[in-house]
């Protein structure tokens, strides 16, 4: 990653994985639950996407747990949009948090939040 004309080396597992990920306005999008790598025949592998989603995290624990969590996500009706995939080209900054140049609304990371909102706003006194 280029920074002030100097090349900085990033340890992907230590510096990116499990970090908080925020959108361009600083709003929380979740955690980096997984990272996908593109294998390109002949050329060296390349970091492709950061992944957000409980099923990705679950599958890191164990494949069965991953499938089980995926089942729950489908049950909640958000299975289609999970995991959220963000291309590495959208990653703006890697520091205490991982910042991307998108807005939350442009990704699927807020689907559950939005779905719950319709319920929560029905409760008297919610604002």
């Amino acid at each position: 990653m280029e920074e002030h004309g100097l090349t900085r080396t990033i340890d992907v597992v230590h510096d990116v994985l499990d970090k908080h990920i925020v959108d361009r306005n600083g709003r929380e999008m979740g955690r980096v639950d997984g990272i996908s790598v593109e294998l390109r025949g002949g050329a060296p592998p390349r970091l492709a996407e950061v992944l957000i989603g409980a099923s990705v995290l679950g599958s890191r624990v164990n494949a069965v747990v991953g499938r089980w969590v995926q089942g729950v996500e489908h049950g909640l009706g958000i299975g289609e949009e999970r995991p959220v995939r963000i291309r590495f080209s959208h990653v703006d900054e890697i520091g205490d948090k991982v910042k991307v140049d998108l807005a939350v609304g442009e990704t699927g990371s807020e689907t559950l939040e939005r779905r719950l909102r319709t319920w929560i706003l029905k409760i008297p006194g919610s604002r």
Partner: protein
Amino acid sequence: MKKYLEVFLSILTAMGGFVEIGELVFTVNAGAKFGYSLLWVVLLGTVGIIVYGEMAGRIAAVNQDPVFYLIRERNGYALGLGTLIAANIVCLLTCAAEIGGLALVLKLLVGGPYRLLVLGALLFLLLAVWFLSFQAIERVFGLLGLLMLVFVFSAIYLHPDWTQVGRSLLPNLPHVESPRDYLVYAYFCVALMSSIMLPYETYFYSSGAIEEKWTEPDLWINRTTSYLGMGFGSIVSMGVLVTSAVVLGPLQIRVDSYEQAALMFVPAFGRWAVTLFACALGVGCFGAAIEITLNAGYVLSQSFGWPWGIDKARRDATRFCTAFTVVLLLSVLIAVVGFDPLQMTLISVALTVVIMPLVVLPFLVLMNDHQYVKQHKAGPLANGFLAALTIVGALMALVVIPLEIFGG
């Protein structure tokens, strides 16, 4: 001026939050069984929670990171998830115990069937967490926390043997009738320590620091609140222990109901004993139940990176709101199904002490990371003390608790 008033209220809240059902159960029994002897454990536990709480508040004020933000990031996902699951189980059980306690308080005060009263308690709690802001919660419980001073008043009224009280603040072994009682004493040491050093208090405290928008210049507030608030809380606990030692000790009874525990107020408050005891217990349970409920929302949101905060509009933190509401409802379910609140307290206290090193040790590593906390690093004394306390506590718990449970 307003700032000082807020600090004063924070101190009262920390004091009121110090005494909750698990702590009360063990302190009353400790006094009834071993006289003043276990006062040193209350003191040691207090120093532990003050050191730990102050550090958690410091990280939150300096880096705007509450404790649970960091656990997964620094410990890796496996340990992070393990701690999250353990913390939530403890939250559920402790919350169920507090709700059960609250229902019993209502029973002592107004009477009625237990299950109906649990639902009454749920209604109170739901109204409080849904409609009060963080500041309002703090104000209400800060002022109600003053009621806890009845324990201190009662202890002074009873004219205890102050020399003996003073001596018991240092580690000591009581005179016991059978060698088996030493095991019981060790069990009480562990349980009392664990019930004082509840990690949820620090998750809540550090999340609260962010809710209240503390920054580096507010570090003095953090120090004042943790030292004085928890210090006064400890004096209240000592008041409970001394009262119980003077009144219940000579009766040679094992306190296994709240009606029995309320007897300890009779010499000081006469016919008001049960009412006052119930009110104080109720305030403790209610405050703790709210803290634990919100805490479940905090730890889940911070672990998964959801927006969180009780002062955020509900529409902007829906997963946070759903998480704490679900945990509250599950706790009520556990309480309604009819586990005995005292039993739930025992289990949650035992679990707490075993997971302590998982939470505290990685936190200490972070407190020593110069890059992260800059000049606010923990000193060697605080490091050593906290590490030793949690490791020894957990090792003792692993030996003593099974022995106590299987030995009846």
